[in-house]
């Protein structure tokens, strides 16, 4: 099982649910890695869904594990891409053509869901209308509050900013506009005193 129960946290921290088939003219599903499991389940729950679904999938380190199963669902459109960044132009183009009645489903890591949600909300879909389901890694996208650079796939707390090199602790404070958590210098008051890193949620 690839799901993780996040402990309760502050109100800016996103919470994730369980994707459910919803009535709609068309369905946009964006997932990475183990997020495919949520899509496979959706298809099993509603056999009519796939004929109206456009799936955008980034396998990441799961390789071919889920791609043939997704193909077998016979969605209206399926894109399997090498990275989220590579998929963004296609996602934007698809959202440009979207009409009323589009349902958006996000599944996978927080970084993927957060960035895809930003694209969808920029296109005019309210964030509260978008379904999400977490699967896979608990790594985070973190913005350094000091240099503003974003470090992807942060698993350790504290960690070193990949842009300015400061040692940052990872807050639960989250910005949908940046699709990122906040990283703040951990040794500002005692330079050089950086505690040993631990894995998030370990």
């Amino acid at each position, binding site marked *: 099982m690839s799901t993780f129960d996040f402990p309760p946290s*502050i*109100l*800016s*921290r996103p919470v994730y649910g369980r994707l459910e088939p919803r009535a709609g003219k068309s369905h946009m599903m964006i997932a990475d890695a183990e997020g495919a499991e949520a899509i496979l389940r959706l298809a099993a729950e509603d056999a009519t869904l796939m004929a109206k679904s456009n799936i955008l999938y980034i396998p990441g380190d799961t390789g071919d594990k889920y791609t043939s199963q997704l193909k077998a669902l016979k969605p209206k459109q399926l894109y399997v891409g090498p990275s989220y960044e590579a998929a963004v132009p296609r996602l934007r183009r698809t959202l440009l053509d979207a009409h009323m009645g589009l349902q958006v489903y996000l599944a996978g890591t927080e970084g993927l869901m957060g960035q895809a949600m930003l694209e969808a909300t920029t296109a005019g879909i309210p964030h509260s209308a978008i379904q999400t389901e977490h699967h896979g890694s608990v790594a985070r996208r973190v*913005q350094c*509050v*000091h240099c*503003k650079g974003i470090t992807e796939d942060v698993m350790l707390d504290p960690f070193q900013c990949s842009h300015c090199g*400061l040692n940052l602790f990872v*807050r*639960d*404070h989250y*910005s*949908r*506009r*940046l699709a990122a958590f*906040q990283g*703040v*210098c951990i040794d*500002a*008051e*005692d*330079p050089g005193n950086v505690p040993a890193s631990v894995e998030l949620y370990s």
Partner: protein
Amino acid sequence: MTIQFNDETFRGDYTFKNSQWAIDRFPFPFHEDNYMYSVNMEQHQGGPEGSVYEKRFDVDEHYVSEMKDRAQVLAEDPLRCQSLPHMTLAGWDLLELIMVSKSEDYPDLFELHRDGNHWHWINKPMGIDQRFTFMDETTLPYGPMEYITRQTQGDFAVLDQRDDNLWMDAGMVTTQADWSLDFDIGMNFFEWHAPVPKAHEMGIFVRALKFLLNVQQGSPARRLNWTMTVNPLLDTSPENYHKWGVQKTTLTPENVGQKQHLRVELQTFFRLPRSNALVFPIRCYLIALEDVVSVPKWGRRLHRVIRDLPEELATYKGFIDNRPLIVDYLSKFDDGLATSPGIWPDKDSEPPLQA
């Protein structure tokens, strides 16, 4: 009175200083000998003559130097002033509110002459004489919110109202108690307050939001908030925390009275007419502990408040490590006598410190 504007700094050599006038009118935030969160709102319809509550936008001796400090912060980090595209109208609303208020409240310092949309603004302390067309951005050197808040003390959060919530969609933030506009812009009321401990569970934000959603035009509200800052540093931003955080470790028993400052925010809330946005000015007043304790009542009270503050709040406000040092200093100004209710200094009626 005519204000004598100080030439002073809020960084580096820290020449900031409060005159006796500024000490006497300081907005001391504690109305009793202890502190806990509350929705401490009241109408912002003036106050005692000479107090910081009297005018809609208080101007004091620090005005010109604070505006220089703001310009310096913005030159180093333009992200401290941002406005999402739908907030320009609210920016014009704010510009109008401030220009009208200041020219009416301080006619010797500010003038506004209006002929239809042809406006003429004179800001004497800053030496600004600007003719522009109201609602035409091309006639001002900055967007309307940035233009007027470069000339007005205090931070400004401009909140859009929709979906029964307030959204921080624009702001000018250079004198903040450690929060980032760049990170929080676009968040709703509960989201940008998310890191505050305890207050959510106490229902503070639900009640505060309900109040703020109903603030009406012409009926502004206000409250005080506070924290502690080492050195009179206005820009205690998270952006620069890796630079200023270390200053917290420079306190000693000898310098705590001069270096440790009580930082008070006079927060006001005005409904804006065209946009229906809510503007939330957050005006920062700083005072050194040695000046606080020059008022006997405030010395007694501050000692008790800081000594008894719950650990969670002292941690959130960022002075938990320095609290013993601060309490030790303040204890010398607390003789155990009772204090009069309310925030006012009551210098004429409260007894001097007993030996």
